[in-house]
């Protein structure tokens, strides 16, 4: 069985035409004065999905989250949650909870009282509150910190209190605004997996806003890539990476080599692209691009092979000169300047400790790739 990327997915309600959408942004526009933060955006999120809104800062992703939480009202369009139109419902009556980027822990309350805050608002009986708070503290492994105040905790502990507080009410949807932004790299990686486990065990719908593509790729079932208030693509991490829908998405997520040129179609999806200066690229993934269209051929660095001799039988092989090498331990990244001046980035996994065919700066080298390694982008 073949699959895009390296994972087979069993949870994929977005492919099921009968699946009921849980959260729906329906032609939502949000303006702040003259500035349009969100522009006629539609988006569907399913129950129990871990959904990421990915984009550069100021792209409108946080505004989407704040509209879902109720802190902002859309200028136009509707937001539906479980079939209910959220317009006019104040944040304190919405069945969603948010984990704030700054954590927003109440400084005058203990960890315990922070977590209990939302439960007390709901008028839950005291013994039940105590039980739930205990459960939450256990969940985030902070049992012995129950009586501390937020300022007596480390950054990572505060993050976990914020998380416990936001899931304590068992919301229909948990909104996470840059949940790992303030943590250092190592802690961030650990916490990513903890968040995924938590989402699995609680069975909640998570919507996370992040500017960190690695974070989105790791955690999310699907990613929406947002730019200038519009959705560029909504897809699984593997699709976003292996089958980007546009030049923007290909360039935004991960590294990519792009060749601009005119396409000439062959049979059964096969096509050749004239990238100029005698470079012709043969590909099997031409999609629906028509002959003569101006397209970009996008290929990821790890799908390009680099060698000192022209590989025998290669469909696509271009000669150039190695002008930069970055040795990263697990892999090595080569920058090869093709004879037309185009720079190609190729990365090689260092699967063996000793390299048979070592390359050095200014060596002549060949970059080659299979006809199914790249994608043709028309947008």
């Amino acid at each position, binding site marked *: 069985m073949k699959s895009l990327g390296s994972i087979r997915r069993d949870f994929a309600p977005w492919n099921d035409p009968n699946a009921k959408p849980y959260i729906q942004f329906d032609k939502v526009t949000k303006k702040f004065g003259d500035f349009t933060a969100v522009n006629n955006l539609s988006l569907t999120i399913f129950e129990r999905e871990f959904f990421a809104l990915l984009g550069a800062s100021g792209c409108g992703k946080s505004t989407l989250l704040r509209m879902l939480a*109720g802190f902002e009202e859309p200028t136009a369009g509707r937001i539906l949650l479980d079939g209910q139109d959220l317009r006019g419902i104040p*944040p304190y009556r919405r069945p969603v909870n*948010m984990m704030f980027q700054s954590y*927003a822990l*109440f400084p005058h309350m203990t960890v315990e009282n922070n977590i209990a805050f939302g439960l007390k608002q709901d008028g839950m009986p005291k013994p039940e509150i105590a039980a739930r708070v205990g459960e939450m503290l256990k969940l985030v492994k902070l049992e012995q910190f129950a009586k501390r*105040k937020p300022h*007596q905790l480390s950054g990572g502990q505060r993050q976990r209190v914020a998380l416990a507080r936001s899931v304590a009410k068992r919301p229909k949807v948990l909104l996470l605004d840059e949940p790992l932004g303030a943590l250092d790299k190592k802690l961030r990686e650990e916490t990513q997996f903890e968040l995924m486990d938590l989402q699995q065990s609680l069975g909640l719908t998570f919507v996370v806003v992040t500017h960190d593509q690695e974070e989105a790729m790791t955690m999310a079932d699907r990613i929406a890539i947002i730019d200038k208030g519009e959705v560029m693509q909504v897809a699984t991490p593997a699709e976003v990476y292996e089958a980007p829908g546009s030049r923007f998405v290909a360039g935004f997520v991960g590294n990519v080599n792009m060749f601009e040129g005119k396409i000439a179609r062959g049979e059964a999806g096969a096509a050749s692209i004239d990238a100029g200066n005698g470079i012709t690229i043969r590909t099997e993934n031409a999609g629906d691009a028509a002959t003569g269209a101006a397209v970009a051929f996008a290929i990821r660095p790890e799908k390009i092979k680099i060698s000192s001799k022209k590989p025998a039988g290669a469909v696509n092989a271009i000669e150039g000169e190695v002008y930069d090498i970055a040795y990263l331990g697990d892999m090595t990244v080569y920058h090869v300047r093709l004879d037309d001046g185009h720079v190609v980035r190729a990365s090689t996994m260092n699967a063996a400790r000793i390299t048979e065919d070592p390359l050095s700066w200014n060596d002549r080298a060949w970059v080659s790739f299979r006809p199914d390694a790249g994608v043709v982008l028309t947008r």
Partner: protein
Amino acid sequence: MSNAAVTAAATSQATDAGKSALARLSAAFIGRLVIIIPYLWLVFFFLIPFIIVFKISLSQTAIAIPPYTPVLDFGDGLSGFLAQLKQLSIDNYTWLTQDALYFNAYVTSVIVAAISTVLTLLVGYPIAYGMARAPATLRPTLLMLVILPFWTSFLIRVYAWIGILKPEGLLNQLLLATGVISQPLIVLNTYTAIFIGIVYSYLPFMVLPLYSSLEKMDYSLIEAAKDLGCPPTSAFWKITFPLSVPGVIAGCLLVFIPAVGEFVIPDLLGGSQTLMIGKTLWNEFFANRDWPVSSAVAVILLLLLIVPIMLFQRAQARAQEQDK
């Protein structure tokens, strides 16, 4: 190496050590000096004057210059000085307890100050809150407006209130003209006028500390409270207000303490009927020329104010200790 050379070297080393020790000493001295200056200030301008007042409060009134006895004089030798000391007594303090006037004046002052403080808080909190929530570009202007009255003499501003509050004053003219009332209100020379005067005069002292504590507050805390199911009013009492308590306390102390001893406002706006300790003190000092009794009044006033402040500070220090 000869002995002489060794000795010379040792000497030079010793001098070096001496020099560096001297440098260290002088550095330490300069460090101390920086701390000493404010203490010296307090000693000369607070402690010594207080001791003088305290000594006068133990003396007896006399028709003389200065108008009390004994005047401590070291010229009479040690035995003379001791004899003078023996003349000091707590008679004046006993006197304060015997005449109900003083007790009533103290109680009235504390009550008037307390009510004024609460009123100032009620007026000042919304102002400070509005300022803290105003657009960041507008805040310096608003802050300026709060401080602006200080540019005019305090006395003139209080006099201006006479013009507003008197029976034929601006307030009554306005109310009569608009038909809200048919008879002029009697506001001047009542406690109401004192409250108005104190609230008006001390408002900046309330607004500024409140503003600084509200402005620091992270607005996302309110959003978090709302997000967790807390309606706005409840979020104010559960989050905003508790976090502004240090500002509330600072503001209340800054208003309450000077208001207890306030003289100008009750004198100008409160008329002769009102009984406040500041006025009583002034009367004892200038009208009766009884320096010892007025000094005793001042000492008791100071104790009256210092004791609650110290208790409060100790409670606060203990609360902070517990936090750590």
